[in-house]
């Protein structure tokens, strides 16, 4: 740990570093978890990605990153690890950690904060950034998620082509594994665009009622989108 230079208080035992109560409480809360091993094991991603450093390490690093006792050099080092490919981006679904409930009351929000910081620092680029950006953007545009735009913007043309080869797109296009009604009804959409093709999601969404309210909420709470 690279300690930061900070203010101290003179007490009978000597000089000790001072920290305000709010910061101290938030630091305690951020690393409030009964067992690092259990927190690590609570992630459903861990068994399937051996390179992932895991939620326990990330929660601990995030607490240290926010600790005023850590120097800037130390913070930079912690953040680099958190934001690396094997850091928070490798967590495929944080809900598996939230599932463990009150035990991780402090640690679970730390992971979300770390992900938010990672996305912001990266300018919402890369697959993770684009996924969150376009998800939010399409919701603002119509009030509903547009799955077609999201997949196209996140995967890009090469990703979409790969899905065509590996069978994902044909399964969606033809809907032959689904029980959702006669295929001919879906194929009619080919002649009347914009509409869905097979079990493919729609290309253009209709807006929800009072869509301007959704736009206003976006504008009030986050003008980036």
């Amino acid at each position, binding site marked *: 740990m690279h300690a930061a230079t900070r203010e101290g208080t003179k007490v009978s035992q000597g000089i000790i570093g001072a920290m305000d109560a709010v910061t101290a409480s938030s630091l305690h809360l951020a690393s409030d978890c009964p067992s690092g091993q259990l927190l690590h094991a609570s992630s459903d991603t861990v068994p399937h*990605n051996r390179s992932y450093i895991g939620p326990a390490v990330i929660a601990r690093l995030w607490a240290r990153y926010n600790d005023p006792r850590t120097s800037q050099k130390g913070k930079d080092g912690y953040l680099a690890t958190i934001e690396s490919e094997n850091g928070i981006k490798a967590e*495929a*679904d944080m809900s598996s950690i939230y599932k463990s*409930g009150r035990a991780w009351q402090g640690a679970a929000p730390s992971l979300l904060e770390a992900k938010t910081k990672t996305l912001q620092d990266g300018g919402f680029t890369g697959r993770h950034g684009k996924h969150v950006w376009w998800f939010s953007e399409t919701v603002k545009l119509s009030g509903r*998620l547009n799955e077609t735009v999201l997949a196209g913007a996140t995967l890009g043309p090469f990703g979409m082509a790969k899905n065509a080869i590996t069978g994902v797109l044909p399964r969606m296009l033809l809907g032959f594994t689904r029980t959702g*009604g006669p295929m001919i009804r879906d194929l009619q959409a080919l002649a009347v665009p914009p509409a869905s093709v097979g079990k493919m999601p729609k290309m253009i969404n209709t807006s929800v009622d009072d869509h301007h309210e959704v736009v206003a909420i976006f504008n009030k709470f986050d003008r980036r989108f």
Partner: protein
Amino acid sequence: MAKNRYAYFPGCVTLNSAREVQDAMLALARALDIELVPLNGAACCGAGVIKQANWELQIALNARTFAQAEAEGLDVLTPCASCQGNMSEDFGKLTEDADLRERVNEQLESICGLRFEGTMKMRHLLHVLVEDIGLDVVSAAVKNPIDFPVAGYYGSVMQQDGSCGDDDIYDPHYFEDLIEALGGEPVHYDSKAKSVGFPSLLSEESSALKMTASVLSDAKSEGAMVMASACPLSHINLDSYQVKAGRVSGSDVEMPAIHLPELVAFALGAYKDRYAQLKTRVLVMGN
């Protein structure tokens, strides 16, 4: 007027790539005398993705939906486990944090003239069927009993404190009870509440596919011939990405994957042609 009325929040996927969920919801509501009051102005729940950019924004969007349901005096019913989990989480945050609630309400009042008071509840179809309608009523309405082993998939998002009704968070059993009431044989498997990594399907595909394969192969090894999902979002992994998941993991994952509302609607006698189609697929694929 139906005895059971709910503000209906289908979720984006139900109205888009999974229209079969919407078909099945309307059919089962008719059969069980449930009135689904549409929330036409409701926006996307954020699916836990918007909150990665700005949690307060996602909470404000959901607070608007909650306030719309409260204006109708109804609880919200959704067939989507992701919507249920994420909206319940945001509901909890709004009720616990008075400052946040005030900030959000101030904006809601100026934008839509609504306030969130916390008088409604978020309900998933599974919990409504078990807790409100009653499995005895469901069982009495069955016309085409499900006659094959079914693995119920809960997913991880809904299995949180405050999201899963009175069901057990860690070892849920409502889905198995429901399958039994529909005449089917419930398959008990460890991965029923594990994540398939849907939120990262497009960004962290390798992990998501291995997680998907793990759930499918676990259910299959326990004798499942069909998987029914309580989450239309996870269903995309379980069905559309099934072949790819099998290829990445090298495990046997082939199995028809349908939605929970479809299973119920088929058993209640709706869409006989689709049920026949499913039975054919079960016969062809076997176990």
